[in-house]
């Protein structure tokens, strides 16, 4: 494969040229990066025969030469959305934390937010203990590549019993004049009874077609309550692989809401490991691909211990020329008795020329559990449309009303009112164009 050859070679060149390991004062990081790169070298980019990536074709995306560790000299401060005013903010450009545009005024002083590279170099105990133990290089070549090449990254530590009283807006974007291939990385450690919500916001615009390989690792200690919103609103030529790996402990409540409205190829790998008894995870997603866009959600919920709950709802609207993929794995391991695990994926096709590949996978090895999964794909209900029209509502408005109601089931999970409103309005506007 052409892509494998050239991009891999280029990556190899970059990796050795930069001599990243030598630059790092942190001794352990050298080995960490080298091992990761060796893993990536052995695996390469996933081709279409790779079971987990079979619906995606990366090859054309990497045809043009990409700048691999872009150092932009002239960065511009991005324009933030309206809801940003209700949040703390950090800005990540080309994988690097940009401090001067971050807004952490009033952040509880116990909370650490800084460069991950620095935290490791300074031998931060929490960061050192967690790095490399959450997302596994062996499981996914994109994780390995991110581990080898991430530039600085972000480290967030919310100590025991500390509450982040406003959501943290992680504004993640790329800037430059050419095709970029960037590796943002975020490590979140939430202590016992910590309480936080994070908004991972991908917003690359006005750039030659670029590729972001993002990794976010979350470790939630006992009784922590963590909400993650993932807002994907990139331009139609931007591609993204976003891996979230969360390991949650006893009594934790972990919730994610992933809303994908922009980008060319967007792949979400959301892996949640319920790493102790009596914790719960809630996963929600909404996506609307159209016109040559592919939005792919792969989720994994891993029940390892008894008395845990998980609930998953992903809903999509697929417009003409769009392609949606949903693959939801739920593992209920032998010891995970008394598990409640529910999963549902629903799709509405707005055209005959819209594609959905959906695959729920439930693997249960325990015998005293309540689990279910379901998936449905269809068109808007003609009976509902007729009912609305019979009251004087136009066909376009009737469609928009039904689609809005359909999205609301997921969007209503967003507790930050201004973000909820912003996304509702954006989705409404998209539906009116249909």
């Amino acid at each position: 494969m052409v892509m494998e050859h050239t991009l891999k070679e280029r990556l190899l060149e970059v990796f050795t040229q930069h001599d990243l390991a030598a630059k790092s004062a942190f001794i352990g990081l050298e080995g960490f990066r080298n091992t990761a790169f060796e893993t990536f070298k052995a695996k390469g980019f996933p081709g279409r025969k790779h079971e987990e990536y079979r619906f995606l074709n990366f090859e054309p995306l990497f045809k043009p030469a990409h700048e691999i560790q872009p150092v932009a000299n002239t960065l511009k401060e991005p324009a933030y959305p309206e809801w940003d005013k209700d949040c703390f903010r950090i800005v990540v450009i080309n994988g690097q934390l940009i401090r001067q545009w971050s807004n952490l005024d009033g952040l509880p002083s116990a909370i650490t937010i800084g460069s991950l590279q620095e935290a490791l170099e300074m031998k931060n105990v929490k960061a050192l203990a967690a790095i490399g133990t959450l997302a596994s290089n062996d499981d996914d070549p994109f994780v390995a590549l991110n581990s080898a090449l991430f530039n600085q990254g972000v480290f967030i530590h919310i100590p025991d019993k500390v509450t982040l009283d406003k959501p943290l807006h992680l504004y993640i974007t790329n800037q430059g004049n050419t095709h970029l291939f960037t590796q943002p990385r975020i490590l979140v450690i939430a202590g016992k009874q910590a309480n936080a919500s994070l908004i991972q916001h991908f917003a690359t615009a006005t750039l030659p077609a670029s590729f972001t390989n993002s990794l976010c690792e979350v470790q939630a200690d006992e009784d922590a309550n963590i909400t993650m919103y993932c807002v994907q609103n990139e331009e139609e030529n931007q591609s993204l692989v976003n891996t979230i790996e969360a390991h949650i402990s006893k009594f934790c409540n972990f919730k994610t809401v992933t809303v994908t409205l922009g980008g060319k190829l967007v792949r979400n790998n959301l892996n949640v490991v319920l790493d102790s008894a009596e914790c719960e995870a809630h996963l929600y997603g909404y996506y609307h691909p159209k016109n040559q866009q592919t939005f792919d959600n792969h989720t994994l919920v891993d029940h390892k211990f008894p008395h845990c709950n998980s609930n998953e709802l992903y809903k999509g609207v697929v417009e003409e020329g769009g392609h949606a993929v949903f693959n939801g794995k739920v593992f209920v391991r032998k010891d995970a008795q008394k598990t409640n695990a529910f999963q549902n994926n629903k799709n509405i096709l707005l055209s005959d020329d819209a594609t959905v590949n959906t695959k729920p996978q439930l693997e249960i090895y325990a015998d005293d559990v309540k689990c279910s999964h379901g998936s449905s794909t269809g068109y808007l209900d003609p009976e509902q449309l007729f009912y609305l029209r019979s009251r004087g509502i136009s066909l376009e408005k009737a469609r928009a009303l039904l689609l809005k109601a359909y999205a609301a089931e997921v969007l209503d999970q967003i507790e930050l009112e201004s973000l909820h409103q912003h996304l509702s309005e954006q989705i409404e506007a998209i539906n009116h164009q249909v």
Partner: protein
Amino acid sequence: MLKISNLYARVEEKEILKGFSLEVKAGEVHAIMGPNGSGKSTLASVLAGREDYEVTAGEINFDGKDLLELSPEDRAREGVFLAFQYPVEIPGVSITNFLKTALSEQRKYKGLPDMEPKEFLQRMKDKKALVEIDNNLTSRSVNEGFSGGEKKRNEIFQMAMLEPKLAILDETDSGLDIDALRIVANGVNRLKTPQNAAIVITHYQRLLDYIVPDFVHVLVDGRIVKSGGKELALELEEKGYDWIRKEVEA
């Protein structure tokens, strides 16, 4: 107001209406009765503009307009209202939002501005009282989780809100107990004015004890075979539809 002439309609290649004619004037209530499969619900569907029904011949004139040329939404905007036999559940769309949208669309068609929020709320309040609808019901999703009676009352509530010229009640009595039936009928009666009209489609005479029609028509095999005053309904109740069939055949 409404003139249906020699209407033929079919669904999935099956002819259901075969030369149906009816004239309804403002201020009148017409009951259409008939056995199962005679075409009662087809008539309601054709009038409201359901797309899977194909009209093969005949005309429907509504206040000077060719009704068959109009989309379902334009028929509603012209003042036709169908109370559904089986109201559809629409999760996630509240009754309030639904009616606000419907009213706004109907007013826009007539060149009127949106109703003031205060006026809208007042109308909601008045009409809820009229059909004895529970206050909380309107903040819920349209028909979702409603009982059979609540669904039918919600139909009449919508009718009250939209104030149509012509209301078509399609088997509104089916599935209602006597109390619900009384409430529904009461609502319909109180909405009656000399300017509007109603077509009440029913299998049983029961509803007509409460909504007293000016005319009763008997529909058999796709056309009206007998018309009369309200006493015809009683006769039907007593003698059954076979009596009409025999009379027609004779």
